[in-house]
């Protein structure tokens, strides 16, 4: 009895030890390695096309933007990646600040409005996401005109938000940059006084609005469009509301790319081509139609049903400054919202 057990254990260990050596043979050299903080389900189709377009093997490593940027910082010069495709400008700004990004050619940068790229020239926005309000028409017939109205007493207990989400924090950072720390702190205190309901992420906040748990929530525009694509418009109760021109609640953040320092010459070359491809008409159309984001390279328009980016008149802000997230977080924590 005991004999057979130890034999079985030994056999198990032997087999298990073999498995990795069998599967490990797949790791041959790739032309380009992309670290993608963007979700695989969202960008895999376009990255497959990118592989054909730039004419080399592309390996994509999917992960969380913040965790991947921590990984890139930990890797330093030894990074395996040539290109970082980040979900938001903040992670790119942080890498830029730590001097981990190589510069992009001016021609590439110039395809995108200066508002949506790095002032230092080391990253460029690829697609735009707009902060919006999503509301439940059964609970609130008319959403507020400005994000500033949300601190009025009539919204007490009716607001949902995702305080730990990077997009919410980027929005607060934007408000700090636009309106100063003092007035942002006051706004956050006003929000806190209205006892908003904290959700873990935008999707849960959207669920909250949909089910009527809250009347209104602050999130990014495409979550609503994705939900409609998932369930059909008829079964989505929530409606989307764009904030008026210049409102800090209507910040446009970007997903973008930066080339990494430490990659070899060959990989850098491919990375540059890849950045160009992501700004090509084909790729920009993909972001417009498939992920419902705003295309940022000139000449491509957004999906039907979305207002034009130019008509939104988002607040003017240097997205590179969105990396002062630490101060934002300290403020959000200080007010007691996290």
């Amino acid at each position, binding site marked *: 009895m*005991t*004999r057979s*057990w*130890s034999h*079985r*254990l030994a056999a*198990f*260990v032997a*087999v*298990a*030890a073999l*498995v*990795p050596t069998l*599967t*490990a043979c*797949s*790791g041959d050299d*790739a032309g380009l390695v992309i670290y993608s903080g963007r*979700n*695989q*389900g*969202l960008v895999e189709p376009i990255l497959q096309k990118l592989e054909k377009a730039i004419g080399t093997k592309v*390996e*994509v*490593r999917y*992960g*969380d933007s*913040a*965790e*991947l*940027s*921590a*990984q890139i*910082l*930990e*890797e330093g010069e*030894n*990074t*395996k990646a040539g290109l970082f495709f980040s979900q938001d400008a*903040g*992670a790119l700004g942080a*890498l830029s600040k730590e001097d981990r990004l190589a510069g992009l050619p001016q021609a590439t940068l110039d395809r995108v409005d200066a508002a949506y790229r790095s002032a230092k020239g080391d990253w460029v926005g690829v697609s735009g996401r707009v902060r919006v309000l999503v509301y439940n028409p059964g609970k609130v017939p008319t959403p507020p005109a400005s994000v500033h109205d949300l601190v009025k007493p009539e919204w007490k207990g009716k607001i949902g938000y995702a305080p*730990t989400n*990077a997009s919410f*924090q980027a929005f607060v950072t934007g408000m700090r940059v636009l309106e100063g720390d003092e007035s942002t702190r006051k706004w956050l205190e006003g929000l806190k006084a209205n006892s908003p309901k904290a*959700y*873990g992420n935008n999707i*849960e906040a959207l*669920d*909250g609005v949909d*089910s009527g*748990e809250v009347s209104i929530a602050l999130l990014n525009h495409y979550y609503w469009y*994705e*939900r409609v694509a*998932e*369930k*059909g418009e008829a079964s989505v109760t929530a409606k989307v509301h764009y904030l008026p021109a210049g409102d800090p609640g209507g910040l446009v953040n970007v997903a973008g790319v930066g080339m990494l320092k430490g990659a070899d010459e060959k990989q850098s070359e491919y990375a540059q081509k890849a950045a160009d491809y992501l700004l090509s008409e084909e790729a920009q159309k993909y972001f417009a139609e498939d992920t419902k984001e705003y295309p940022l390279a000139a000449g491509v328009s957004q999906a039907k049903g979305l207002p034009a980016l130019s008509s939104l008149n988002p607040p003017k802000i240097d997205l590179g400054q969105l990396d002062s*997230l630490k101060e934002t*977080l300290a403020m959000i924590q200080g007010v007691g919202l*996290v």
Partner: protein
Amino acid sequence: MHTTALRGSGSNRPPLVLLVPACAAALLALLPLGYLGVRALDRGVGYAWDVIADGRTVVLLARSLGLAAVVVLGSLVLGVSLALLIVRTAVPRAGLWSVLATLPLAVPSYVAAFAWLSAAPGLAGFTGAALALTLVSFPYVYLPVAATLRGIDPAQEEAARSLGLGPMAALWRVTLPQLRPAAAGGGLLVALYVLSDFGAVSLMRYDTFTRAIHTSYRASFDRTPAAALSVVLVVMTVALVAAEARSRGRAGHARNGRGAARPATPAALGRWRVPALGWLCVVTAAAVAFPLATLAYWLAVGNSATWDGARLAAAAWTTLGVAAAGAALTTALALPVGVIAARYRGRTAHLLEQAAYAGHALPGITVALSLVFFAVRYARPVYQELPLLICAYAVLFLPVAVAATRAAVLQAPPILEDLARSLGRTPLRVLREVTVRLAAPGVAAGAALTFVVCMKELPATLLLRPTGMDTLAIRLWTETGTGSYAAAAPYAAALILLAAIPSYLLGRHRP
């Protein structure tokens, strides 16, 4: 009954054949600590201290410890009550219940949390986090307690009865004290698991220490504060391990000789039959049936449920492969540490065991970044290759295997080892021919348990897997990232079903 040591000629030092591999295991487990030291002190002691001494740190620590205490208590109640009912009473279909009581291990904490949250959004917060975590972690207590109950010689309780004690009093005074080490060991694993959990607390929106560490990586893109906070978790782990060691004492519970004990006669339930069955039903329904039903619901609704069978199969196969390799390495490393922890006293034994636990309360991302740090500098060829991922599993789950090995060795009678020694066997032969052979079922159970936890691991897998490799947990994360719950459901279901196989074997396992 006393534990005598597997000692060489009267000394109480472990033989080299145990000590060398045990030290290797401990060093691997201590890697994250080295990294944390480097990172936390990146900007000087003052900065790290400012992070740690922040008022919020204390609050978060209190919240984490409070959650851990409640979950451990809940797990003890569920684990011990189920073990007593299933092993010691005449409850019908004990074999089936035993499997069902082990199955919650197969449910990832984030799936359990999601299931509860989608059914009752009001649960968010402490209550929800405590509920979800208790329901997925009570088998850590159930398994060792049930195993100990099966190994206890019924003659002891019978002797107590013959001396005039009632059945409840005999249970209370003879049997329960013997369960204490197993329950405490299981409780320790539960506590460390809760401290390191990110999935459930994050879905339940309950801010804990680990969640703060994640937020810190996210918010500042700065590894220093996260590292400083992680150091606090390590200190907490060492304190917990020390407290547990104190509570269990050093008494062993081995019988002299295997095969002499009969199984205890199951107690008749009488009028307690219905309540007992009801309790078993409620617990297993909440922990197993409910999450599965939620997944079935998501499979049934939503248009994103595009079945990608090939992708599912590939992820399932990969998951099995890496989890098996992870379990194999972890078990091999845990064996010498577990034997030393069971058989030897003294500082070396203590330090080795504590070192093995060092990484367990750390969030997966911290362990992963520490391996990134070391691998890009000193082991470039394995960076983002399977061997490194397997090592990460070993660092993360060594305590699970050590606890199982230690318990199994404790139940093996040391007199046989002494006998073998006195007959001139070398320490290696004693280990191979006596100790391992006697402890093999328990060690195998530990391997199965490690296999299950490796299958569910997410953050370290995300950072360390070979580029392009997917496990079920990663697919699940990817699909829920876009809110495609229906597309995520098949992966969650596959994960639970595959993890159910080793759980099933564990549940059926008889020492």
